[in-house]
């Protein structure tokens, strides 16, 4: 099949967009429509902020990075390619890249020091068993390498599929599966460790 035919069939295969779909909003954002951007922001900010919060472990950083992410969305809206990638995946990819740049600049020592438990852990059942388990999981997550932590968060917190997580991380689907497998194994080991052993490890 010639290139023109492939292109024509690809265009024809795209479903019609509803006026309120993410893709339609992105097209309006690309044309400079601030109301469309506001709608997109209200729809995705909580989710992107949650990802950044868990990835960086620091509330102030996650606020700043979420702002940087959405400003990039505003400025780069024209580079979004509908049909090739979903808006949520594209947003997560921008957020992930922004966070990785930040973490590289910040340095690992500063990051470990900065890790604070997320806000949802301080709820009314903060002393409950599940809250304690969340806290242990949070501690274990903070000890994971960034690529494993990202894969775990994208898959289990953000609910992305493996192909979408692969698109966000810029790796193959098999690589994501491998990251998830190693990440879960490492989490299990960290959560099984007695607290005292981990304290000693952190002190040393």
């Amino acid at each position, binding site marked *: 099949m010639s290139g023109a035919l492939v292109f024509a069939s690809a265009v024809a295969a795209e479903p019609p967009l509803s006026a309120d779909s993410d893709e339609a909003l992105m097209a309006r954002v690309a044309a400079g429509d601030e109301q469309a951007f506001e709608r997109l*922001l209200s729809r995705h900010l909580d989710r992107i902020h949650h990802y950044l919060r868990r990835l960086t472990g620091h509330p102030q950083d996650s606020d700043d990075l979420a*702002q940087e992410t959405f400003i990039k969305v505003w400025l780069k809206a024209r580079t979004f390619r509908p049909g090739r990638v979903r808006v949520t995946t594209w947003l997560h990819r921008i957020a992930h890249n922004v966070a990785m740049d930040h973490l590289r600049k910040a340095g690992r020592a500063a990051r470990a020091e900065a890790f604070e438990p997320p806000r949802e852990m301080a709820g009314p059942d903060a002393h409950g068993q599940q809250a304690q388990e*969340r806290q242990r999981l949070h501690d274990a997550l903070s000890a994971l390498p960034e690529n494993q932590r990202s894969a775990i968060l994208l898959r289990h917190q953000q*609910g992305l599929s493996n192909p979408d997580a692969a698109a966000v991380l810029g790796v193959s689907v098999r690589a994501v599966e491998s990251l998830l497998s190693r990440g879960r194994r490492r989490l299990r080991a960290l959560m099984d460790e007695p607290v005292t052993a981990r304290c000693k490890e952190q002190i040393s």
Partner: protein
Amino acid sequence: MSQDNKPSADRLDDLLAVPHAAPPALAERILNNLPPQSRWRRFLDPELPLAWQGGRWRPAATALASLALGFALGLGSATPDEDPLYDDVLVLAFSDSYFETNGDYFDD
């Protein structure tokens, strides 16, 4: 820790996928700090159908633009009257054989 508490995939979903809200003032802060979108970029990107935006026409347009620029520069800089070697270069470029090019040296 019991076996049930170990982070299987389903357990991780339960533990990690909790509701989360960004700080209320953050959205407003982002909206208040939006920089203006580039006007020349908007001028270069006409209102194409959505499927075309940011898509396949860009590489072709880039190639055509650089080709046109090359032609423009080439036409602008072609000044054969000022270049004493221009005729020689033409002969070298379009001649069919070595003897045709270097015939002068063999004509006595």
